[in-house]
């Protein structure tokens, strides 16, 4: 089929594709291939050991960074608030208190300092959290601004007693029809 028969755009597309594709490689491809066949033996003599050394260095560096970061990372603190036993007298708010295992330095509390003698509930990382029930005479600490005392205003719950459900017999009074309603 000639170009005239195929149409102008068809022949233009053919020309464009030919122009893009019918290019010859630069002369000397055979020699360039031969050179590349020789090249890896020269390059490989130092390339592989260098790569292996670099990989070892990278692994060592990552290990050091990981070890250092794991040492300086603070332990997770799981806040626990113990609830007083149900036998405690009702009507008094409970206060949870943290008792540290050992005399450790007080944790840094940002903001206003708390009252002396108060202990942080979320304080030391390895602190032991113990439940504290308040006695009837214990004074209440009302310090909502302080981070170290948190009043837990949950009253002691009385034991729940579930009474059995008693079903009353349904009594239906007898239906008595006295008269038909009148139509208006």
């Amino acid at each position, binding site marked *: 089929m000639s170009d005239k028969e195929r*149409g*102008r*755009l*068809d022949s*233009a*597309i*053919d*020309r*464009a*594709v*030919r*122009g*893009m*594709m*019918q*290019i*010859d*490689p*630069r002369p000397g*491809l*055979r*020699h*360039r*291939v*031969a*050179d*590349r*066949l*020789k090249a890896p033996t020269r390059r490989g003599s130092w390339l592989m050991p260098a790569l292996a050394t670099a990989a070892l260095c990278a692994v060592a560096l990552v290990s050091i960074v990981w070890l250092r970061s794991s040492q300086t990372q603070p332990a997770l603190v799981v806040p626990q608030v113990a609830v007083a036993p149900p036998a405690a007298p009702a009507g008094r708010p409970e206060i949870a208190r943290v008792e540290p295992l050992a005399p450790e330095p007080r944790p840094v509390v940002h903001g206003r300092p708390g009252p002396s003698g108060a202990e942080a509930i979320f304080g030391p990382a390895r602190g032991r959290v113990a439940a504290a029930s308040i006695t009837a005479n214990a004074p209440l600490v009302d310090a909502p601004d302080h981070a170290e005392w948190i009043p837990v205003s949950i009253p002691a719950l009385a034991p729940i007693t579930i009474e059995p459900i008693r079903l009353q017999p349904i009594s239906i009074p007898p239906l008595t029809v006295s008269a038909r309603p009148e139509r208006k």
Partner: protein
Amino acid sequence: MKFPTNPSVAESTKRVTAAQPAEVSDLELVRLAQAGDTEAFGELVERNRRAVFRAALAAVGSATEADDVAQEAFVTAWRKLSGFRGESQFRTWLLSITWRKAIDRRKSVSKWLKLAATASRDEAGEDMFDIVEQVPSLDRTPDAALESHELQRDIRKLIRTLPRKLRDALLLAGSGEHTYDEIGRMLDAPVGTVKWRVAEARRVLKRKLAAMGYLDV
């Protein structure tokens, strides 16, 4: 620089390749190369260099990169030559290696960086392929030549925007070096699919050209 030679085999190859170069088949050259004859492999490079280069060019779109890919393909073929059993033609096997190398190159990050760099050059109207079409035709008026030049430039830009499957089939078919069967092997598609892709690529191009105002007279 010549291929590293194995003297004993090289001598026999010289006799074969120099005395009867046209009669030695690719398969015979492959057998000699598998025995270590680098001259025979050099002859295979010479015979297939254009097909390999144009296959790479269809994938990567740059003559410089296509030359590099062609070299890599031949080097890989040399290293894998012992695994070639002759179940298919050497040329088909070589083109498959070439296509894989070219696709790897096309996917590489450096390729994209270079494409970004050449994109700005294309915006300025320069194109490595334009050189071929810049030869003035004597039987055309200056206006017609200018219009044709613009049309060619627009078609090339549109070809680059085609979906890869269509573009690859169109360019490989237009290379003048590959049969549909070879293209099908390279693209891992049946011959019928390859032909459909070529036709579809042309349809898409013509539709876009018509939308740009070019009439199909």
